[in-house]
């Protein structure tokens, strides 16, 4: 069982994370989630800035990954979250989970994303053609936690 957590301004490489995750011979299932900066419906997005609470973000992500390891039989968990200025289509977040079995890998990966969305101190400010706006938290992200409680 291993946990890797990083908060960084540099981009990350899905392929490298994946080759780390599949190193365990007992691992039959790997689920990855990648979050990207996507375009807006109503205006042009020039990019976004990810602010965070240095120190607390790493602790929060490690705690969430540890909770996942305590819930499911997992071989490895990787969580990477970027901060700073990002352009459209850039990668924001990566969660990768390796497990012997498929249901555990899916559940743990989604669990980690659901908690990250509600508990890890990151904030997005969108830079659009109409100005800069802080992204509002979504009720649907909060409701997503209900299933795990």
């Amino acid at each position, binding site marked *: 069982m291993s946990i890797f957590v990083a908060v960084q301004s540099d981009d990350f490489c899905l392929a490298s994370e994946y080759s780390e995750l599949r190193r365990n011979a007992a691992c039959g299932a790997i689920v990855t989630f990648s979050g990207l900066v996507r375009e807006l419906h109503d205006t042009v997005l020039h990019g976004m800035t990810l602010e965070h609470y240095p120190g607390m973000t790493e602790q929060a992500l490690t705690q969430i990954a540890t909770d996942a390891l305590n819930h499911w039989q997992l071989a490895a968990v990787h969580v990477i979250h970027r901060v700073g200025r990002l352009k459209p289509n850039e990668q924001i977040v990566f969660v990768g989970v390796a497990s012997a079995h498929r249901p555990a890998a899916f559940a743990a990966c989604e669990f980690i994303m659901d908690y990250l*969305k*509600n508990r890890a101190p990151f904030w997005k*400010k969108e830079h659009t053609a109409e100005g800069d706006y*802080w992204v509002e938290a979504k009720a649907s992200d909060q409701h997503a936690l209900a299933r795990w409680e």
Partner: protein
Amino acid sequence: MIKILFFAALRERLDCEQYLLSCEGNTLDVASVLSQLQSRCQNWQQELSHTDLLCAVNQQLVPLTASVQDGDELAFFPPVTGG
């Protein structure tokens, strides 16, 4: 001293990143710290009264009933929007 940090939209609206509060060796609860901050001015009163405000003591999320003491790091921030 209690070091108080503000983040994101809240930091911008208070126009304050960090605030030092003397607690004279007393243990306080977060709610009473919040009251002191709210009483500074009308803008702070308004911005620190949002019911969805989150709070962390020493980088752990806590409810407003949590206590803080000399040397602690207290942070207030809006709902998180990472991921």
